[in-house]
């Protein structure tokens, strides 16, 4: 049986995996990055549009350019890279963590490590998850698959396209398909507001006169062999009004209806999942319920900008290093609780002695909101926000001096987040 031994094994070589690998390897730890694709960079390589790196590099890059910044640095470092290699199973023992890896080139082997970073990213929700009625013809794709087919493989999936959901990938694909000569006949969004970034609505739809049907749903897919048409129905007071349904004849349907963290491997190791995010529950160190197993990026919670993924992964890398050095072993942490109008707050715990950084999403669309953070009855922070919406994640930092060292049943008081 073949075994390889490392300090840290990172599963996934996308934005999260690469940034955490660089952070950890800079301390001299022995790091391996495992990925199923034949290249580093993950999904970034199929995102050939620009808009990446504005926060991290203060310039506008395409996906491959953004990835290249990390890839070139990884290649300069002493980091082992296993490509075309699928992690099929994970087991967590007291001190050692074990991953089964399978590949054509290296066969099947076990990777033993003191710590693991989960950086597998996410997958797209699809037609099946939504239970959209109608037939099941060819011509139904997730937006990401269509993007991959077009940008990497060079195949145009169809010529008359309707896009379901106004997620960012769908919007980007509306423009991309138009450029390739396909006709995009509309984007159908169930919510009264778009789910993608405002800049994408403007640059990808409005600039090309592509209709955006807000508060509309697909009520039927037609076509026996290939998609022939969809029935679109407006929602009135939240209920589809069938008397106002209309048909759009098309041969292709793209779904851009949200992303789900890919945690089947995580669950196979018995790690606890947060039903709100679909990612693992993590403490202030970004460590999952399994000692020594960390998570960052879209596998933890779905981000809307890759810059935030890289940032979270760098932070995660630092935590892994601190863990390997035994610095964070006996730290006191308090619970984070999610209150009104918030979907989730990551991480799920906070620490008293150092700075804390939280990422969160609102459940409401609102101008002039206030983020309230309380420890018991005491207000720790009151942060005014110009505009909040579920599509845009926001962050907050809390300094240790703002926190009281008050305990309840031996634990620090829960830190309560709410949006007013």
């Amino acid at each position, binding site marked *: 049986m073949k075994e390889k031994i490392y300090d840290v094994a990172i599963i996934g070589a996308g934005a999260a995996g690469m940034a955490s690998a660089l952070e950890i390897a800079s301390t001299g730890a022995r790091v391996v990055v495992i990925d199923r694709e034949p290249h580093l960079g993950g999904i970034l390589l199929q995102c050939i549009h620009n808009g990446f790196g504005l926060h991290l590099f203060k310039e506008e890059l395409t996906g491959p350019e953004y990835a290249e910044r990390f890839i070139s640095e990884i290649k300069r470092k002493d980091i082992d890279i296993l490509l075309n290699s699928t992690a099929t199973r994970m087991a967590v023992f007291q001190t050692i963590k074990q991953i089964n890896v399978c590949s054509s080139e290296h066969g099947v082997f076990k990777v033993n490590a003191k710590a693991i970073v989960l950086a597998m990213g996410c997958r797209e929700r699809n037609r099946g998850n939504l239970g959209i009625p109608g037939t099941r013809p*060819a011509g139904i794709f997730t937006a990401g698959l269509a993007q991959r087919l077009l940008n990497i493989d060079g195949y145009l999936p169809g010529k008359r396209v309707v896009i379901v959901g106004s997620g960012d990938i769908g919007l980007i694909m509306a423009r991309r398909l138009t450029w390739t000569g396909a006709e995009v006949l509309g984007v159908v969004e169930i919510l009264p507001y778009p789910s993608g970034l405002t800049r994408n609505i403007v640059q990808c739809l409005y600039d090309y006169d592509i209709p955006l049907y807000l508060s509309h749903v697909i009520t039927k897919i037609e076509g026996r062999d290939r998609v022939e048409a969809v029935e679109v129905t407006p929602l009135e007071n939240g209920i589809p009004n069938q008397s106002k349904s209309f048909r759009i004849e098309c041969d292709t349907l793209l779904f851009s209806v949200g992303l789900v963290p890919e945690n089947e491997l995580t669950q196979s190791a018995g790690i606890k999942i947060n039903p709100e995010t679909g990612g693992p529950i993590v403490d202030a160190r970004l460590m999952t319920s399994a000692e020594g197993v960390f998570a960052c990026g879209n596998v933890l919670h779905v981000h809307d900008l890759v810059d935030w993924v890289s940032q979270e992964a760098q932070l995660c890398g630092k935590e892994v290093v601190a863990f390997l050095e035994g610095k964070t072993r006996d730290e006191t942490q308090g619970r984070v609780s999610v209150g009104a109008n918030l979907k989730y707050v990551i991480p799920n715990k906070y620490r008293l002695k150092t700075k804390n950084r939280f990422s969160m999403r609102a459940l409401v669309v609102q101008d002039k909101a206030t983020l309230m953070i309380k420890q018991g009855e005491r207000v720790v922070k009151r942060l005014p926000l110009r505009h909040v919406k579920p599509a845009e994640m926001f962050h907050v930092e809390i300094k240790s001096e703002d926190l009281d060292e008050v305990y309840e049943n031996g634990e620090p008081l829960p830190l309560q987040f709410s949006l007013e």
Partner: protein
Amino acid sequence: MNIKEKIYDVAVIGAGCCGASIVRKLSAYDLSVVLLEKCVDIGFGVSKANSGIIHAGFHHPVTSLKARLEIRGNLMFDQLHYELNFPFKRIGIIVAAFSIEEMKTVEHLYAQGIANGVPRLEVCSRERILSLEPQLNPDVVGGLFAPTGGIVEPYRYVFALVESAEKNGVEVKKNFTVWRGVRKEDYWMIESKEGEFVKAKYVVNSAGLYADEVSKAFNAEEFKIIPRKGEEFLLQRNARGLPSHVIFPVPGKHTKGVLVIPTVEGTLMVGPTAEEIEDKEDLSTTYQNLEKVFVQATYMVPKISRREIITSFAGLRPTLPSNDFYIEPSKKQPNFIQVAGIQSPGLTASPAIGEYVKDILKNCGLKLIEKTDYDPYLPKPVKVRELSFEELERLIESDPRYGNIVCRCETVSEAEIIEAIRKGHTTLDGIKFYTRAGMGLCQGAFCSYRILKIIAREVGIPIEKITKRGGDSWIIYKRLQDIDLNQ
């Protein structure tokens, strides 16, 4: 002899579970047999949407042909599984009763089952049934337990039957849509819509939903197949509420009701609905039925969550007004055997139907001489997902393509995809049903492009020619280099 001049002993129309069972049975004898299928692949009609339940045999009265063949078929599955290695497990069936009135029906089912000869059937108290199946709603008052019930993967079952038949000399013609049968001196001339001809001394009509049209095309009996649609919902592996038995409600007048089925591959299926329709191609699903199915399923097993749905699909049961199977020689035409109205428990009965039709053919004068070199066995197909670390290590050493995991959700390797293509499954759906690639959580979002490339390479066709399931179900419109943007 010119191939066009060849006269087969038997032509079987329709490569569903019945047609497949019949040709496999006949392949044990010294006969020339051809299986004719209108679809691009076998099992692509009624059988592919089957719930995959091997019924125990208590649902139908002893007087029916259904009950006889169901019991006999059920008993044959262990031997078939041993010979053909398709996924099959006898996990047992539970009928859950939620009132005293329903318990009366349970008693009736018990009596019916005993009369039919169902082994080890038991009536259960509330305590007994909850200890058997803790996932049941605690409001249950009792029920029926049939340990001989089981589950099977229906497409792998049909594929295995046909593979075994082919191994023993049966020929298979796909894309052969029968439109006319003309009686010549002592044989049938069968013409296809695609313009092909097949001659055969005996013809078996096991054309599923189209058995009525095929019968008409041969000038045989006139009857009408009524499609009864069933919608099903598939939930992910390790779904909450996953029971360890197939759970039935107490049946209604015409249907067995909405079931909760732990599939043989570890996923959870709920359904089917039952709705008589006109259109034999209507495989659409509706919101209303999703609602209905989940209300009924969660009543029996409360933990089932629609958040865990992977996909939904619909199938059509080919029913006759009699509600029984119609298996007999035509009274109007010679050497033409009708196998029609094979709805539930058709899959369970199918091995027995194969045997029964063989006997009918014998009575009609077909000479049956056992082959001396008949080989009933198929090797166990390799599935990377089920291998131990050491087994996989050895396998990859012999063929590195077993190490290339193409479908991450179901852990299917490149070698398994190639195996499916070599066996003649060259559409995306054919490969999906054969290997499970694309059947998991991402529904092909991560593996479709990989599979398309493997098909193109192995079959030697351009990617635009690959289909989802034959016909006009193309997947890729054009390659970028072939697009003229100046047009």
